């Protein structure tokens, strides 16, 4: 903005350096006090008093309403009854509190004195205190001798720097080291693809064109660290017309007759990429809207993810069930430093 319009209409105004008395208005002081209705009229005062009392009575009724809700609305395992009880407890509390609160504020505003009072500010720090404090600190430093004895000072400094380190090191056992954990999943050669969450295996013939399956590896429901394994191993299985897939060299046999399996864990920050747009063959992550294109091996076509979803190589076993040919060829899920 290159304009420099001075706001003063008419003559250009030079205004006073701040604080100059001549060029600024004198403070006219507090405006005269205007009495309220209740200050002048006895009847208005009585009325205000009754209003305050009425508000306090409303509070009493609110407390009673709470008890009615608590003791006389038995819960019967329906949401409706629970909601009714919640409403009565809440409204009871609301009336109980608002009655007291509004009553007290109304009391203060109508019946307590409303004269504004002026109080002077004091210096945060009187100069004499500052001098005394400075002297005290200097005396303390002098008597401790910390300035005169550098040996003591430096050894203390060294000790004080080292002493907290155990307090950091002791947190080492918060968790194990990552090791290879993020680079491998339960998938392996011959592991069957099964439905999530039931764990029933899937035949290639079950997967019709246009359908999608949420898939977990066989045996997931029995492993000890089920959620940790599931957080890496979940897969989306879809069947397209084989001509719509464009596998890159070396990945031609990762699918089976148009059936392909991709990791369901978003390469952005790890949400499940749960939305399959059947018509466009796009996968959409509902958390941050990263969009992956199945026809381009789940390349990112929109959103914050930077990497394609890893593909799980699959084949069909002797009994016609879908199985993995191997584990994923790269780590699944969000990126991490060691991913490489």
């Amino acid at each position: 903005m290159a304009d420099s319009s001075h706001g003063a209409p008419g003559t250009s105004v030079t205004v006073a350096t701040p604080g100059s008395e001549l060029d600024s208005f004198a403070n006219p002081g507090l405006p005269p006090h205007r009495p309220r209705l209740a200050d002048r009229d006895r009847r208005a005062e009585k009325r205000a008093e009754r209003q305050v009392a009425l508000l306090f009575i409303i509070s009493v009724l609110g407390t009673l309403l709470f008890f009615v809700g608590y003791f006389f609305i038995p819960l019967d395992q329906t949401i409706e009854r629970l909601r009714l009880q919640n409403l009565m407890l809440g409204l009871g509390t609301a009336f109980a509190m608002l009655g007291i609160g509004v009553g007290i504020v109304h009391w203060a505003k109508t019946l307590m004195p409303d004269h504004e009072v002026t109080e002077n500010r004091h210096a945060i720090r009187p100069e004499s205190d500052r001098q005394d404090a400075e002297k005290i600190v200097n005396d303390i430093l002098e008597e401790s001798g910390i300035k005169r004895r550098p040996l003591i000072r430096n050894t203390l400094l060294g000790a004080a720097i080292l002493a907290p380190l155990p307090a950091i090191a002791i947190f080492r056992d918060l968790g194990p080291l990552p090791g290879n954990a993020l680079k491998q999943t339960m998938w392996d050669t011959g592991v069957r693809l099964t439905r999530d969450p039931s764990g029933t295996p899937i035949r290639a013939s079950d997967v019709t064109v246009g359908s999608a399956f949420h898939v977990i590896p066989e045996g997931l429901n029995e492993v000890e660290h089920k959620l940790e394994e599931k957080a890496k191993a979940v897969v989306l299985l879809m069947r397209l017309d084989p001509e719509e897939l464009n596998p890159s060299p070396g990945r031609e046999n990762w699918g089976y007759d148009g059936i392909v399996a991709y990791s369901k864990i978003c390469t952005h920050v790890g949400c499940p990429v749960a939305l399959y747009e059947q018509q466009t063959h796009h996968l959409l992550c509902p958390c941050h809207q990263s969009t992956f294109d199945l026809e381009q091996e789940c390349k990112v076509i929109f959103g914050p993810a930077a990497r394609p979803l890893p593909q799980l190589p699959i084949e069909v076993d002797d009994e016609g069930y879908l199985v993995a040919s191997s584990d994923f060829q790269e780590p699944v899920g969000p990126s991490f430093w060691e991913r490489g």
Partner: protein
Amino acid sequence: MSSSTTTQTYVPKTRVGKVTDYVDSRVGGSGIVKEFGRKIFPDHWTFMFGEVALYTFVILLISGTFLTFFYDPSMAETHYEGSFLPLRGVEMSVAYASSLDISFDVRGGLFMRQIHHWAALLFVASVAVHMLRVFFTGAFRRPREFNWVVGCTLLILSLAAGFTGYSLPDDLLSGNGLRIIDGVMKAIPVVGTYLSFFLFGGEFPGTMIIGRLYVLHILLIPAVILLLIGIHLFMVVLHKHSQFPGPGRTNTNVVGYPVGPVYAAKAGGFFFIVFGVLAAIAAAFTINPIWNYGPYDPSPVSAGTQPDWYIGWVDGALRLMPGTLGDNFDFEFMIPFPWGVNALSLNVLIPALVPAMIVFTLMFAWPWIEAWVTKDKREHHLLDRPRNAPTRTAIGVAGVTFYCVLWAAASSDLIATHFLVSLNDVTYWLRFLVIFGPVLAFMVARRIALALQRKDREIALHGRETGRIVRLPHGEFIEVHEPVDDYKRYKLVAFESPEVMVPAPDADGKVGRLDKVHGRISRFFFEDRVAPVTPKELAASHGDHHGEIAGAKDRESIASH
């Protein structure tokens, strides 16, 4: 503070006298009563935001303590056997099961959960609005800089308290929130993977995280918040409350109502009002119905879910950042090192850290930035009306705009589905707005502030437009203006308007580089300014017609504009 001065000979006669003497002669309370009993607090509706924050925190402590009696922060597996039939027999964590029990099998438990969640939302909101009030009125200036810093820290802690609490029910939504935190953490270079493994006690989700968040949520964070609130209020008492300029109010006094009885009644009553309003909201509006979401499972997710409002801006930033540009450039860099290749995910790191760093750095440093620009080291106890500090106000509005665009971006999918527009287009627009929105907002806000100042000048000089049109004998029509009284006018003219500081050459006649920069920034801040009306100007434009409904003189003033 005067200490107890009870003498042996004093014999109390009234009941109040007996009680106070009993206490006073043991712990010396007279000094406290003398100091605080009639202490003056200025009154303004904007001063209530901080009170709301304090009161919601008290309500959080009360309702939260109740919840701890029934909640079990264990991630052990269990099968639900409670009253909510649709989830009977479902495998879940003990934490989630106990949260369901609080909702369905503890009478009043659902109400307590709801009031706790609503109070948490209001707590963060009131802290934020309170800080905006402090910023826009310049209440952070000397001597209150440290208290501003304490407030900024409290804001961060309130976000931490909110997020750790949000995760505790261990339902599908909160688990997905943790998954996102895990993903962001892993993107941190070098130590990210280790941080994630240490926080979760191994691979995500593990069995440790809920218990750890629980200790942070109910012990560590509230304890630090409580401590900082103590320091915050101590400094408020020490500085005495700031006040808006006006008749009778100066930089060296406080005008308002005494603590006893008026202010104590109003502030104390206000606690009950806040409590009552929260109770009414908790009664009528469902928040976080965890029974609809089910237990955490890494596979399912529901579309259109939203984080609690205060996390929204970070989530929105994550959404807006493009992962790739065109076909050949992506924001995830593979950096070759002698020992191998490491991954740097700027598409996650930039949105997760940069906006928060910008906002919080500017926020913490602002009192010193502004003091450097104005070279103003005086104590300020009189507040600025936001219009009277146009550049500061515009910068604040720009910051709020930046925040709000990111916040809106957290709902980009809902915007798309509700208004039937393309999700991609919404994202493109918001990306544009997050960059240019603050600039536009800055310009518009500064213009509005200056225009409001000009309007104040008009009113101070020529009075208020009465809407009464008068025809003069020679046929001219004028609108009669009614001069404002001294008190009203003083409100309009009592402000400081700093001017551009031109860098002064030193003894060698040279202007230092830093001085030049300062000069430019000072020009940016104060070049556009509207000066307050001076008595001389008023006299020149009007003559003296206090109290008279103007006729001919107004005509002159109208004619001259």
